């Protein structure tokens, strides 16, 4: 129901109009002069207002302006007995919807108000739409800034390229992952991005039919695995099924590639180490089987015993590999207990007695205390001592010696094992802890081993947060210095 304000100083007209309009269903309020008109018209919003032009206190046009200033959607009419083109223009210029010449018939005023009320409804609808639009614009800009923040904060680089090959969007990580100093939105970018990626983008752009698939490629941005990225390119398809751009996501996979390379190198080394004895044994067996070669019985026996030695080496190697893999997977159940390193060293020496006796090697022991305790896994620590001591025997000279010292320093238990053996050249020392490295020189021919002994040693020492150092002089001997943290 429309609310209407009548502002007129003529009492008869005011009341007559009120009665008429109320009978037509309007909610009517009246004001008897300009002052009251302004007071009522600005204290609440009316749908419609009919304002007399000439009033003794305030001019109708001023009342009009004041109401319109407060409620721009109130549809106002100026009623005037002095209707002229000039006042009509002036009043509409000041915000009146129309003017009503006085005197008016009931039909005339009802007709005007009917049209005015429809206009009022349109104004309100427009207002509502404007507000809705403002809210959604606000939401969009909020959403945009949120997206930008998210995209800028992910580690993956993001590039969006339009169908002209121009840059539509990029984030900071894209600069970093492509190692490009700067990019500008809108610039032609296909010659700035790596060839492997631009080729894929071109494939999308040049195809007559929209390609809906995503493609990925790996690109070396910097050599030697310093920066390798994986680029995932996907089309942005518009509502008509046409490609409107390409989004490229760039992921830094350098670390992954490095690990992959180390792993595949290790696998190929293992393959080589495993295959070598198999090839030798297989060679012997084929010779024995080949009747045309006429191998004597004694020679056959010789080849079989050499094959057994190679197979034992192979078995040792497999066991070492299993130990390493167990250590790597940390699935090994460790049994940490209080160990006496003196006792463990002595029992290891006893275990190696035969080899010591064969070469006539003398052991000189210097233990700071009678018992030196360390919390560790007995198998691991025994393995550690066995590997170092058996190297000290294997690479020693006949009638040489091995000196074992165990002593405390502030934070560590120090175990030093020195041999009077063949020593190492500096370049051999550098590679000492590498998997499968075995020093090869005139002294070492005939010394067998898996090439994994010291790899295992270092891993054991590392796992206890200890340290290991090597001092060596070629032809004179080698000292391994192990430091295990005091933990008892």
């Amino acid at each position, binding site marked *: 129901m429309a609310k209407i304000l009548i502002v007129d100083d003529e009492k008869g007209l005011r009341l007559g109009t009120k009665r008429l309009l109320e009978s037509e269903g309007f909610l009517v309020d009246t004001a008897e002069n300009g002052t009251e008109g302004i007071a009522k018209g600005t204290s609440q919003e009316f749908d419609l207002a009919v304002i007399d032009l000439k009033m003794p206190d305030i001019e109708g046009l001023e009342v009009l302006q004041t109401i319109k200033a407060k409620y721009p959607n109130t549809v106002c009419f100026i009623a005037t007995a002095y209707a002229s083109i000039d006042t009509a223009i002036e009043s509409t210029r000041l915000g009146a919807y129309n003017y009503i010449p006085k005197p008016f018939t009931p039909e005339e005023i009802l007709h005007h108000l009917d049209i005015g009320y429809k206009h009022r409804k349109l104004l309100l609808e427009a207002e509502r739409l404007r507000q809705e639009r403002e809210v959604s614009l606000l939401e969009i800009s909020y959403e945009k800034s949120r997206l930008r923040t998210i995209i800028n904060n992910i580690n993956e680089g993001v590039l969006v390229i339009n169908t002209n090959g121009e840059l539509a969007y990029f984030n900071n990580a894209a600069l970093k992952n492509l190692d490009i100093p700067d990019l500008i939105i809108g610039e032609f970018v296909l010659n700035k991005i790596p060839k492997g990626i631009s080729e894929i983008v071109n494939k999308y752009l040049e195809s007559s039919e929209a390609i809906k698939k995503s493609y990925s490629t790996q690109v070396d941005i910097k050599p030697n695995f310093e920066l390798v990225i994986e680029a995932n390119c996907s089309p942005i398809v518009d509502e008509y099924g046409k490609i409107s751009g390409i989004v490229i996501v760039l992921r830094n996979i350098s670390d992954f590639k490095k690990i992959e390379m180390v792993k595949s190198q290790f696998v190929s080394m293992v393959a080589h180490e495993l295959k070598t004895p198999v090839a030798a044994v297989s*060679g*012997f067996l084929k010779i024995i089987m080949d009747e*045309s070669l006429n191998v004597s019985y004694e020679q056959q026996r010789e080849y079989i015993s050499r094959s057994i030695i190679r197979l034992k080496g192979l078995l040792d190697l497999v066991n070492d590999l299993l130990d390493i893999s167990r250590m790597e997977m940390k699935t090994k159940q460790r049994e940490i207990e209080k160990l006496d390193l003196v006792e463990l060293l002595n029992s290891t020496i006893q275990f190696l007695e035969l080899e010591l006796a064969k070469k006539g090697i003398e052991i000189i022991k210097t233990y700071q205390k009678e018992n030196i305790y360390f919390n560790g896994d007995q198998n691991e620590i025994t393995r550690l001592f066995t590997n170092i001591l058996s190297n000290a025997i294997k690479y020693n000279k006949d009638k040489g010696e091995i000196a074992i010292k165990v002593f405390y320093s502030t934070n560590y238990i120090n175990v030093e094992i020195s041999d009077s053996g063949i020593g190492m050249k500096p370049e051999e020392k550098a590679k000492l802890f590498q998997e499968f490295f075995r020093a090869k020189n005139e002294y070492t021919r005939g010394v067998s081993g898996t090439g994994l002994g010291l790899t295992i040693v270092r891993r054991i020492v590392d796992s206890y947060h200890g340290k290991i150092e090597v001092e060596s002089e070629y032809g004179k001997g080698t000292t391994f210095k192990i430091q295990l943290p005091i933990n008892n």
Partner: protein
Amino acid sequence: MALVAIIDDDADIIEATSLVLKSKGFSVVTANNPNDGYAIVKENNPNLIILDVMMDEPDDGFFLAQKFRREGIKTPILMYTSVSKAIGFQYGSGEMVPVDDFVEKPISPEQLVAKVENLLAKK
């Protein structure tokens, strides 16, 4: 009778190869490292060289083969490989790899003899 030089760091492979070739009437000289291998070739001027690709370092055999070719030694070279597939080396004879044929370990006696005789016949 033809003289074959065998250069391999695996004593058992040298032993097995020597036995097979000797039984077929070849003469054999052997070395178990690249330096000695170079020396026996210079000294004995063999009719054929059998060379292991991986000695101390993964491509010692290659370097030795290249060294022979650089010095104008044109003796045919049969290269022993063991894990060419595993490490992704795919050799083919050519300028980069100046050898005449490859044989993948382990080798059967017939295959070895066939390859050796084939290379000697070509010459």
